[in-house]
């Protein structure tokens, strides 16, 4: 009887143990190597292969670290990451986008001491990205790519419509004239897109209107931004050159472009590899149509940081150094995946992107690009854009009316 009771007690305790140790397995030490997970967004098979190669390189070059890639879609990544960071269950290595640094910084480890200790020369990186991945005077990630938002276009459609390839610096008038020739009979030149980076870049290029100030403060009531948003919305309602959007679907514009339904789409150089792999036409890139203030755009980029709860930050930093080292970023640039955040390796991307004129476009755009500022409420603004901009795009409300509704829901 006693033995049976003892056995039952041991079993019950065992069960308790099993239920209690579901998390906290990272990092573990197996075979002399510290295992750690690297959380990254993955846009498709080409993307997955590119990132897996980075993981493989770290595993072969860094003697005491083994990293495993954990992919999520870009749309879900930040929701998942902010939850993991806040509950101290984030992997050691996490991807950070420059415009979301402020929103994630409380869960990330400041890297400044590790940078000093390991003699990493930050001057080798694009200055705007070091600024973009910093908040409150601390650095929260080492950047891997940078790039201005540009216009992707379908060269074949332009040719079929009898249009010459657009040149860097083209104006909104030239864009509109071309768009009209590419539209009609149920076809549209471009599709609306409510994603924050897209819409804010488009408005900035049109009239310099900004919803997020350089210091990260959000001013959703900015009249200049509303004016720019109205111009973008009128492309659907008045000019009939932009496809109306169905719902809060930020991938609609990209899908329509890749499917060959529309002729243009606003995106960054980080999507070029994916676009080339998926599109069954020749892809070109050009600067965003310039309005009254001349060519302008936002630049953004991403990097990798270390979560605050990582128990082996020194090993994680070793992995980071390799991931953002000249060799790795040179390879990513050569593969066309990332316009390197290391300025010396950017030439590889221009040489291998295999898009004629890409270098001229990126250089022209980069000259005037300003870093997209980071705000603690960027996720909230992005969600409200998805929810509300469709009303402006589809002509159910004015741009000013929509921005007023958005402003009322943001923290004052």
């Amino acid at each position, binding site marked *: 009887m006693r033995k*049976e009771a003892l056995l039952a007690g041991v079993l019950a305790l065992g069960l308790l143990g099993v239920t209690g140790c579901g998390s906290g397995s990272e990092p573990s030490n197996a075979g002399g190597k510290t295992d750690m997970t690297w959380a990254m967004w993955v846009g498709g098979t080409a993307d997955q292969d590119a990132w897996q190669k980075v993981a493989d390189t770290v595993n072969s070059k860094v003697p005491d670290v083994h990293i495993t890639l954990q992919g999520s879609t870009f749309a879900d990544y930040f929701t998942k990451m*902010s939850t993991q*960071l806040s509950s101290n269950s984030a992997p050691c290595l996490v991807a950070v986008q420059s415009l979301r640094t402020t929103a994630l910084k409380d869960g990330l480890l400041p890297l400044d001491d590790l940078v000093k200790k390991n003699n990493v020369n930050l001057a080798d990186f694009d200055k705007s990205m070091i600024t973009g991945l910093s908040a409150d005077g601390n650095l929260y990630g080492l950047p891997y790519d940078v790039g201005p938002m540009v216009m992707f276009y379908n060269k074949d459609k332009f040719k079929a419509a009898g249009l010459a390839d657009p040149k860097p610096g083209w104006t909104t008038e030239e864009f509109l004239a071309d768009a009209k020739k590419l539209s009609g009979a149920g076809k549209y030149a471009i599709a609306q897109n409510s994603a924050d980076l897209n819409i804010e870049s488009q408005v900035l290029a049109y009239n310099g209107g900004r919803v997020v100030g350089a210091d990260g403060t959000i001013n959703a009531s900015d009249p200049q931004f509303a004016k720019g948003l109205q111009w973008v919305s009128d492309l659907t309602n008045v000019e009939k050159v932009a*496809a109306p959007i169905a719902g809060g679907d930020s991938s609609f514009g990209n899908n329509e472009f890749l499917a060959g339904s529309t002729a243009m789409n606003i995106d960054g150089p980080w999507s070029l590899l994916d676009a080339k792999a998926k599109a069954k036409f020749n892809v070109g890139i050009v600067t965003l149509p310039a309005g009254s203030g001349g060519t302008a755009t936002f630049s953004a980029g991403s990097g990798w940081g270390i979560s605050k709860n990582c128990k082996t930050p020194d090993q994680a930093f070793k992995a980071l150094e390799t991931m953002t080292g000249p060799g790795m970023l040179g390879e990513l640039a050569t593969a066309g995946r990332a316009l390197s955040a290391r300025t010396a390796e950017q030439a590889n991307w221009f040489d291998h992107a295999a898009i004629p004129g890409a270098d001229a476009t990126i250089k022209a755009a980069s000259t005037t690009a300003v870093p997209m500022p980071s705000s603690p409420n960027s996720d909230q603004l992005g969600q409200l854009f998805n929810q509300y901009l*469709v009303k402006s795009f589809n002509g159910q409300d004015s741009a000013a009316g929509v921005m007023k509704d958005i402003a009322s829901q943001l923290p004052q």
Partner: protein
Amino acid sequence: MAIQASPGLKRSDAPDPEPDGQKRPAVSVRRRAARKDSGGLGRQTAWGPFFALPHGVGLALFTLLPIGASLWISLHNWPMMGQQKWLGLGNYQHLLADPIFGQVVLNTLLFVVLYVPMNLVVSLGLAAWLTPKIKGRHIFRIIFFIPAITPVVANVVVWRMLYQPGGLIDGLMQSTLGIHAPNFLGDEHWAMFSIVVMSVWQGFGYNMLIFSSALDAVPESLTEAAELDGARPWTVFYRIKLPMISPSIFFATMMTLITSFQVFAQPFIMTKGGPGTSTSTIVLFIYNQGFQFHQLGMASAAAWVLFVIILGITAVQFLGQKKWVHYDA
């Protein structure tokens, strides 16, 4: 029952049930057996908590603790990252005064009011049609049930392709009538209705199966007797079958009502709650507050408001069932 019966066995003067009237050793055997059983019961009682422990731990960790935690969180300003601050009922006061939350509750009620009757009518109608006389009824049942077991995300993505401008419906209307279909998900007047239609398609199969089984269980003798008395098919259905399956209808109504208050995936994927707030539902509001705006306190408070709404409506249904649910049939 076994405990009540055991004293009878202990009575030494109990009349012997054996027809020969002789005292038999079997009685003492029974007594020993009873004593043994009683010892077994004691041991079982001792073991009971151990066997209940895994389930008890699961219940405590995954049900009771989160419920208590969410109530505690709802009383705080609890950002996802950063310092928590005690607010008392502050979050609840904010929610009740927030016009957006008011709109969200109204949207959820609109969804429920449209969805629940449509779901019940379609599922009951198809279940009534699928009588054993219909050839291939099992195949129809499977076909109608497929949407209910397909992942909702896949269904929603397909329906988004049907609804979007240039999608299947728009394309068909252009080629046949020469006009554009409304922008179902992009127009605030159509968006909620479009989500309801998709949800009915997705959800009716489950209730149909319940109703179909309940209708099959109605005794044929009752319907035949009514038919012999000259009752028409509609009267047979309305006066006999419907009351007979009323417990199933009650169950289906209650479950459908509860799940419809919790609608999330459809607006989350199809509209993100837009245009504006026209398809924002309570659970979507909770998700956005928690995971987009990182306000876990506000999200938890909204979850408790939803809980109270569902609890209230379920209680009203239970009270009202006496009038129309017949368990004695």
